[in-house]
């Protein structure tokens, strides 16, 4: 049979390339997605990044160790405290610094509050992407309360430079424990409201359940971490599996997706892991506030001269968005010889093509929202 006869009657639509972003409200910053579509079905997605590249790693080779901290703030700008924390811990490990108890507790408190703030942003933005405008105003309102606490503590609302190598820039203000407890009481009620307005809302469930299923093997081979990995049912949380700081002293459970309303590893599971993690963070903060030692100088362990010995270190910890790692090579001078940052959202984004293929363009928005990316950290 001739070629023409074989294809007789088969309608072939031409593929179209669609550019989504870099200025698109649902690409969470300056991300450009190059989507190849067949009709409305996505056949290939290529994320183009680099619009927010600020040479973070190169900058770090030119500033001293304490001066790197303001730069780490600006990587994942929704979770600056956690970035500060991981970086400070990496340098402390390199220099073998023993921290006072009080410093460790304060660090855990602010890091967990920041985790809640980051997840609130993820929740609200995902709802907004899917057409629910109300939730984001509520999550923002509650996030502002956390930022108020931080402002009260260190004077800045977003980019703190609060956790220093060997200590903190300031001690907690006098009424912090009371205010924080008041906030947690208020916030626990709010989580129930989020559940009612968004999590179990039928429209939201229809848009996210069974959509963009991420199988475990794909997640692991792409190096996914954080809520994206746990949403697929893998119980992997560095705070539990490789306890750092003082996380082993608290009672809490890692949130793992269960496939409650759809398939395990779908968008809804990744979303739900974040909601559950907020509850667990509230638990941790409550315990930390209760156990917080009264005495202790937060400046006591800060070295006079920060000159780590020759050597290298890789340190990773659980950021709200996944494993954040710092690889530092020191040549014994006050300036890092090389600093590499392992960004969790970079790996999480790379899986997009795997899971969004075959879905519609409007589902890409849901999937991207459930990955919770921050371009500041991807591009650095």
């Amino acid at each position, binding site marked *: 049979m001739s070629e023409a006869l074989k294809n007789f009657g088969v309608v072939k639509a031409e593929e179209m390339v669609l550019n989504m972003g870099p200025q698109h409200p649902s690409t969470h910053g300056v991300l450009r997605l190059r989507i190849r579509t067949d009709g409305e079905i996505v056949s290939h997605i290529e994320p183009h990044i680099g619009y927010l590249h600020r040479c973070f790693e190169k900058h770090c080779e030119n500033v001293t160790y304490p001066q790197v901290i303001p730069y780490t703030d600006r990587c994942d700008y929704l979770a600056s405290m956690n970035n500060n924390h991981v970086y400070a811990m990496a340098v402390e490990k390199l220099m073998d610094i023993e921290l006072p108890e009080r410093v460790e507790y304060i660090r855990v408190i602010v890091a967990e509050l920041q985790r809640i703030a980051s997840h609130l942003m993820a929740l609200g933005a995902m709802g907004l992407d899917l057409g629910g405008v109300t939730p984001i105003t509520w999550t923002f309102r509650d996030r502002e309360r956390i930022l108020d606490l931080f402002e009260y503590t260190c004077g800045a609302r977003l980019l703190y430079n609060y956790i220093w190598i060997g200590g903190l820039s300031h001690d907690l203000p006098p009424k912090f424990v009371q205010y924080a407890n008041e906030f947690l009481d208020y916030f626990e009620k709010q989580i129930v409201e989020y559940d009612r*307005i968004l999590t179990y809302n039928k429209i939201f469930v229809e848009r996210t359940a069974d959509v963009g299923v991420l199988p475990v093997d794909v997640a692991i081979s792409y190096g996914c971490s954080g809520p994206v990995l746990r949403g697929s049912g893998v119980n992997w949380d560095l705070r539990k599996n490789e306890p750092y700081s003082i996380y082993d002293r608290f009672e809490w459970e890692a949130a793992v997706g269960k496939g409650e309303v759809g398939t395990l590893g779908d968008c809804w599971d990744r979303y739900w892991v974040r909601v559950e993690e907020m509850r667990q963070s509230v638990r941790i903060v409550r315990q930390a506030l209760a156990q917080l030692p009264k005495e202790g100088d937060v400046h006591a362990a800060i070295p006079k001269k920060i000159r780590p010995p020759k050597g290298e270190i890789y340190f990773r910890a659980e950021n709200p968005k996944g494993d954040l790692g710092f690889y530092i090579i020191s040549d014994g001078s006050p300036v890092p010889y090389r600093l590499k940052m392992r960004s969790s959202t970079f790996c999480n984004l790379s899986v997009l093509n795997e899971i969004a293929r075959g879905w519609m363009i409007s589902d890409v928005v849901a999937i991207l929202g459930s990955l919770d990316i921050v371009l500041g950290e991807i591009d650095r």
Partner: protein
Amino acid sequence: MSAYFRNIGIAISTLWDGMRLTWKHFVNKKELNATLQYPHEKWPIPERHIGFPEASYNIIRSRLHVDIDNCISCRRCERACPIHCIKIDAVKAPKDHELGQTSNGTDKKLLVARFDIDMAECCWCNLCTYDCPEECIYMVGGPNGKKHPIDYEFSKRDRNDLVFQFATASDEQVAEISAAAGVADPRAARKQRRENYYLPDGGQAEAVDVKAADKADKPAVDKPKVKAKPAEPKMDMSALSVIEDRVVRGLAKKTAMGAVRAGKQPVEVAEAVKAALSEAGKLTAALETIIGQLAQATITQPEAAATEKPVAETKAAKDTPEGEIDLSVLDGITDRMARGKAKAILNRAKRQGGPVAAAVDEIRTTLSGLGKLNSEIEEILAKLEG
């Protein structure tokens, strides 16, 4: 079938629930509202003392302020800043000039001629404030500050207003002290340099590079020193760079440099280095071989005369052919392409200062290659040669 109706049931109940919540927020605006009527309402700024003796030091990071009377221009803040947005110029006052004391009782030895902070560049990291030994640079604008009222939005109408200048010393004072100290007046030099970048009629010269002007400021004070340095004999010291221990390397290089400057021969230099290291108790067999290599290095004597090349002459030589060749002769060629080619070749010859005859020959071959050579062009080319 039952699943179908159950679905509808869930949809209605969850929507109803959501609507009820929204309504609750709608009627309970006081407690649950999420927006602020901004210009009329503002978030409160937290009040908190940090424990600095300075009463107006605030936790809130709103704007940097410098109590310039207390500043000893130690430049610690300048060094602490990760983006270098603090710029300080200071003049060391001679012995007989008293500059007074800070409120902590430290003698001020330097006059602050310039203390600029570019708040448009600042990243509000607060690092500069912690390092100041006099606690005179700090953030203001919070409720604790009596001196500095709450500056909520901290906005300016012009971007240039965000460069805050804190130095209070008058021009005369700066000039007087720098004259007494025998250094160039940094402020006057800066002003002069800025003026040189602008034309007198208010227009701008090409490529106004204010940043470069700022950078050029710094060495202004110690430039004469650099120039006055006499030419020195130099020696190839790369052999020493392989030494791993920093202290030893430094000592070896220093000794070698001193010996070379004293006019010693390579072998003597190596001996001197060896002696210095063994005195310090750092001499090892490996080091001795390295120093042995040093003895083979050569010393280059400075050639004072060679540096004074007649720059003006070479330039003048270059300029001459430009006056001779007249490009407009070629305008007589009617064919556009031929004219362009001819002009390009001639222009190049002119720039390189080559002979005209060669250029004309080249034009001829090029044009005949293109099949454009005709009697009209020949005539013009002949005119050029003649």
